[in-house]
């Protein structure tokens, strides 16, 4: 006896995601992941000035804001062979580490925690015991019995008011919640603390980029000028602000985020055996320390792991058009003029919806069912994201990553195999936040040393003018978004964008299966997941959230030949 269940909208993510799953005897036997919104950014970019592309691309996503801007300026710099000054690379790296810390903390507390933390159970906690627990775990100062007793009073009044806001209709009381009331109360406290904290760390983006979300980037460097003798530039006061903010961010991650993950994990060790899915991991790497062209200088190493073989890293070349990355559309609402998959430089896309007419109950999952294309590397489905980065870094022997992963596994008294799971993904995100906090300060100190030594350059004008460009140029800009491997492929012709293609983390992870029936990461990870009550999709969202979905990136070309129907809805 099997049952088809639908989860739409999947909430606490960026964008619009639908999951359909087949449940049989309390377990998921098949699953389909569908992106249900598309905007057509790539066609919009055509014919525009390549130096403007970063701003358009940044609007792909306001959660992982910055990463698309970074991939974009790198793609143009790669095409035109521009090497940015050392300070620009350091400032970009500091902004990158800032983004990781912000994004991962917000994901854990505000997008993922309510899958593991029962808010209603927190009402039954003993505040004194909660305080004792918090103080045993960490030296974070907000942990007194009084703090937790006040918090509990507020929470009780909130629930009694009957207006539950974001907590309404949650899965409270579900048997899959395992934390004792005290741990739940502590987590609710940290949920609110993290909400306060997250708006502080982004000020680093504001200083260097003018605002957050969507700070400003620049082809050839960074837009801010450094002048330690001027009020209107990056000076000692601004730099001190950045340093202090990085320091405080590191404290929060070390005193709140990491201890919480390590405290919660032992209650959910069964999830170290659930949600593993694919056995292949891909990572482009990032944080260059000697220019973006020198891949060996990256802090996050580049590479791929196949079949969970932790003894071998395979090299990855994003420019390999023959046997590298290709996108397929067997189950996507698009049309190709050719058969098979296409490398992004040759990427072509025409939107062609062939799904059911809305409103619909189910998608035609045996045909086309998503706005996401299906990317493959050498024919393999690959998982991207924190887990891929930590595994590749661990196997490559990157010292900080290897140390942090080893420490976390030691604290949990678990072998590396637990990483291949829903819990492993969530732990990997915390581990890399810790590493990013250390690296952010390291880059900051290097920036200070550079300025002290008299180097204040932040931009190279050498190839700013289109008159200095070749007639045709092609480039790739890679980065590691918080959610995984991200690359932009650009073709420039006579100073304008001729083709622009993005292959983004959510395309790798959330895409529909390919023509051979190989599932991508989301679909594969759900197979075998136990479901206590098919009408309460808690277990499904646990695993899906462990990837930190970000669906707005599902943007593709569109050449419309039809007359567009005008809607005059409700217009007076």
């Amino acid at each position, binding site marked *: 006896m099997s049952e088809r269940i639908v989860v739409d*909208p999947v909430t606490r993510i960026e964008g619009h995601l639908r999951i359909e799953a087949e449940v049989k005897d309390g377990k998921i036997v098949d699953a389909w992941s569908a992106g249900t919104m598309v905007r057509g950014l790539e066609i919009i970019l055509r014919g*525009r*000035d390549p130096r403007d592309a970063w701003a358009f691309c940044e609007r792909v*996503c306001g959660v992982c804001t910055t990463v698309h801007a970074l991939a974009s300026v790198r793609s143009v710099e790669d095409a035109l062979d521009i090497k940015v000054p050392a300070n620009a690379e350091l400032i970009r790296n500091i902004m990158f580490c800032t983004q990781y810390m912000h994004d991962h903390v917000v994901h854990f507390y505000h997008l993922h925690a309510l899958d593991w933390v029962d808010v209603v159970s927190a009402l039954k906690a003993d505040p004194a015991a909660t305080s004792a627990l918090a103080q045993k775990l960490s030296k974070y100062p907000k942990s007194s019995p009084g703090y937790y007793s006040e918090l509990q009073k507020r929470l009780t009044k909130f629930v009694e008011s009957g207006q539950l806001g974001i907590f309404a*209709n949650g899965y409270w009381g579900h048997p899959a919640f395992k934390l004792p009331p005290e741990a739940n109360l502590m987590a609710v406290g940290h949920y609110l603390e993290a909400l306060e904290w*997250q708006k502080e760390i982004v000020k680093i983006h504001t200083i260097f980029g003018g605002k957050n979300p969507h700070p400003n980037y620049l082809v050839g460097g960074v837009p801010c000028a450094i002048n330690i003798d001027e009020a209107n530039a990056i000076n000692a006061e601004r730099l001190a602000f950045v340093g202090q903010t990085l320091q405080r961010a590191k404290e929060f991650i070390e005193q709140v985020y990491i201890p919480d993950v390590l405290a919660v994990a032992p209650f959910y060790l069964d999830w170290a055996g659930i949600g593993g899915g694919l056995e292949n991991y891909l990572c482009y790497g990032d944080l260059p320390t000697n220019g973006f062209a020198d891949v060996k200088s990256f802090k996050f190493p580049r590479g791929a792991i196949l079949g969970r073989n932790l003894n071998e890293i395979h090299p990855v070349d994003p420019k390999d058009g023959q046997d590298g990355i290709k996108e397929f559309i067997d189950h996507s609402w698009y049309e190709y003029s050719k058969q098979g998959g296409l490398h992004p430089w040759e990427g072509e896309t025409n939107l062609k919806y062939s799904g059911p007419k809305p409103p619909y109950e189910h998608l035609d999952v045996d045909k086309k069912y998503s706005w996401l294309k299906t990317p493959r590397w050498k024919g393999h489905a690959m998982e991207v994201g924190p887990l891929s980065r930590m595994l590749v870094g661990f196997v490559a022997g990157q010292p900080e990553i290897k140390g942090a992963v080893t420490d976390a596994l030691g604290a949990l008294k678990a072998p590396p195999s637990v990483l291949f799971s829903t819990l492993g993904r969530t732990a990997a995100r915390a581990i890399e936040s810790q590493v990013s906090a250390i690296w952010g300060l390291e880059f900051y100190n290097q920036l200070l040393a550079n300025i002290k030594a008299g180097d204040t350059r932040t931009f190279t004008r050498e190839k700013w003018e289109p008159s200095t460009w070749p007639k045709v140029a092609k480039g790739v800009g890679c980065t590691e978004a918080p959610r995984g491997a991200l690359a932009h492929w650009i073709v420039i012709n006579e100073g304008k964008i001729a083709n622009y293609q993005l292959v983004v983390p959510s395309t790798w992870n959330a895409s529909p299966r390919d023509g051979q029936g190989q599932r991508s990461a989301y679909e594969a990870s759900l197979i075998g997941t136990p479901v206590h009550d098919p009408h309460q999709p808690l277990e499904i969202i646990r695993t899906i959230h462990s990837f930190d979905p970000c669906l707005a990136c599902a943007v593709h070309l569109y050449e419309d030949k039809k007359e567009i129907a005008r809607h005059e809805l409700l217009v007076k």
Partner: protein
Amino acid sequence: MEIESATKPQKKEETIYEHMLSRGVSRRDFLQFCAWMGACIGLEQTGVAQMTKALETKKRIPVVWLHFQECTCCSESFIRSSHPIVADILLDKVSLDYSETLMAASGHQAEKSLRDTITNYKGEYLLCIEGSVPTADDGVYCCIGGRTALQIAEEVAKDAKAVVAWGNCACSGCVQAAKPNPTSAKPIHKIIGGKPIVNVQGCPPIAEVMAGVLVHLLTFDRIPQLDNLGRPKAFYSRRVHDTCYRRPNYDAGLFVESFDDENARKGYCLYKVGCRGPSTYNACGTIRWNGGVSFPIQSGHPCIGCSEANFWDNGPFYQRTPAFPGFGIEQTADKLGIAALAASAGGAAVHAVMTNIRKRHEIGEHAGENAEQAEKDNPESKS
């Protein structure tokens, strides 16, 4: 344990002030908050008193926050509200009954929350919309729960008290509506009629502006004063150019000629490297970003005009119309502004000149038509 939510509360509802007290906010903090917010939304002292009283006695208003074609930067901006208690309080000062970004429930349970609110609080809930609505091919380019954004917008707007359009997507279509607008993305005011709509412009809007608009709605039970494009005058009546601290450099003819040149390091005016400040209405120069830390110009990048309709198609960003320092630029800048505005839904608003030398006029006072009228006269350019 099941909790029935969003049904009409049987228990005593807390007022906003009581709730703040219970959240550990002191009376003094509360009054400071009111004064700060009042200053932020440009209230006179009597208005602050009125606001204080309103927050002391009002129930939490149910809010439905929908997402269509967007990138979630508006939600992200909103949680950056910098006043010490804004994010904390506003997130549950209003009762955020439906928000795909933050709500615990997914799928059917999420849809139940939405249905509960629009049924039980008919005519009382505030509808916030982030994102544009794709209208091509019957709206299949954005579906949630198997229904199109078009269908959802129509249904949820029907019994809303008022509509807040967050950000450039909801106000004017933003990046997905840039040429050639592949999905025929449209802003909210073209989808929903017969409701008061507040256009809170920007990509994203400044967090404190978002908070300020909500506080205004909560306090006075009516929408703030709007300009001819439906934007709250309190935040969008001045050009970035006129509130820019680098303006004296502009007036003195001191310009950055290239990024990171000697003049950039002195913080001169960015007009020549493409600044759109002269044709952009926003509060970046006064409120600044992320708690007043900085704003794009202060951090060395020209304003790209992200709070204006069609700003994506008024590029390239680093190009300016050639002009000479002084009066000529002002004229050019104003022509630019007129062109930009004429191309937008707003039609030909008079772009008043505001230099130290000339008289000020209130923007929009002499505007030819309101947005809807202009729409009839200016059917959108189809690609």
